[in-house]
C-alpha cells in the first residue's frame, strides 16, 4: 500500500532526524497533541517557529551590525529564539543559543558573531528537516494513512 511505503520513508527519515538531534521528544509531545480536533497543530506550530525564527535571526544580525553592540538587547533576542526552539524541540538550535547566550553575557562580539553563524546554519538545517517531515505527513494523510509518532 502506498501509505505503508510512505510511512516507512517517514520513519526512516524521522529516525535520523531524532538520532542526529535536530529534533527531540518535545516534537513528539506536539505530535501527541495533534488529533481530529487539532489536525494541523504540528504544521501550525512548526510554521510559526520558522517565521518567528527568521525575524529573530534578522534582529540578531541587525544588532550585531552596530558598532556598539547592545549585548543586553542581543541576549534578549537570543533567549527568545532559545525558548521557541525548546518549545518545538529543535534541540541543536537550542544548544547553539545557549552558547550564544554565554557569549552575550561575556560581552564578546567575536564569540557572538561566531554563534550567529552557527545558529543560522543550524536553523537552516532544521528548517529543511521540518519541511520534509511536513511534506511526508501531508502525503501519508493524502494516501489515507496515519502519521507515525516516534520518541527517543
Amino acid at each position, binding site marked *: 500500500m502506498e501509505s505503508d511505503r510512505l*510511512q516507512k520513508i517517514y*520513519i526512516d527519515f524521522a529516525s535520523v532526524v531524532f538520532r542526529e538531534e535536530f529534533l527531540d521528544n*518535545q516534537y*513528539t*509531545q*506536539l*505530535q*501527541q*497533541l495533534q*488529533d*481530529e*480536533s*487539532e489536525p494541523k*497543530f504540528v504544521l*501550525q*506550530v512548526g510554521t*510559526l*517557529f520558522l*517565521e*518567528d525564527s527568521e525575524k529573530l535571526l534578522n534582529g540578531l544580525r541587525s544588532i550585531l551590525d552596530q558598532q556598539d553592540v547592545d549585548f543586553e538587547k542581543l541576549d*534578549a533576542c537570543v*533567549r*527568545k529564539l*532559545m*525558548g*521557541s526552539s*525548546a*518549545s*518545538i524541540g529543535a534541540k541543536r538550535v537550542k544548544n547553539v543559543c545557549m552558547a550564544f547566550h554565554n557569549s552575550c553575557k561575556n560581552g564578546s562580539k567575536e564569540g557572538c558573531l561566531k554563534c550567529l553563524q552557527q545558529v543560522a546554519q543550524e536553523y537552516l538545517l532544521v528548517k529543511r528537516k521540518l519541511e520534509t517531515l511536513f511534506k511526508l505527513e501531508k502525503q501519508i494523510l493524502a494516501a489515507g494513512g*496515519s*502519521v*507515525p*509518532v*516516534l*520518541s527517543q
Partner: protein
Amino acid sequence: MEEVEKREEGSNDGKLEGGVEVRVLVVDDSPVDRRMVEVLLKKSGAMFQVTSVDSGKRAMEVLGLSEDKTKSPVVDDQKVDIILTDYCMPEMTGYDLLKAVKEQSCQKPIPVIVMSSENEPQRINRCRAIGAEDFIIKPLQTNDVLRLRSYARTGLPPPPPPPPSSSSNAGTKRKMTIELMAESGGGGSERRRPRLTGLAVA
C-alpha cells in the same frame, strides 16, 4: 503587533461540571508558545475560555488596568479568572504585569502564574515574593496546565503545597507525579496517544 485571540475550548456549551468556566488570559510575546499553551489548555479536559495577547500592555488593556498610578484602579476583574504570563517580554515584563495586578486594591487579586524558559531561582523567588501563585518552566506540559484550574478564582481550594524537591529553589515543573491526561469530556474522539519508547503508529 497587537493581537488578541479568544478561543472557546472544551465542550460545546463551554461549561465545567458545576457550570463553572475558567477564563484564562495568556500573555506571551512568542507566537509559538501562545499557540502551544492554547492547545494544551484545550486538551486538558477542563473547560477553559482562553484569551491570548502578545504583550503586557495589551494584557493591561484587557484587564482594564491603568499604568498611571495616579488614577484610582478601576479593575474590571470579572473578565479573567487566572493570568498565565511569560516572564521575559519587551517593554512590560511578566514581572511588571504581575506587580500591577497584585497592587490592585480589590479583595481578591487575580491569580497569576508566571512562565519562563529559564530556571533561575532568583527570578522565581522574586515573583513569589510579590504574590505569584506559581512559576512554571517552559516548555509547558500537560500536567502543568491541569493544575491551573485549582488556582482560578472559582472558589475551589488551592492545591496542597509542593513536596520539597532536591533543588529547593527550582521551578515547579514536574514536581508532581506525571499523570495521564484525562479524556476530554467533549467529542469522545479526542484521546491522547500514549507515549511509547519505541515506535507508535497513531
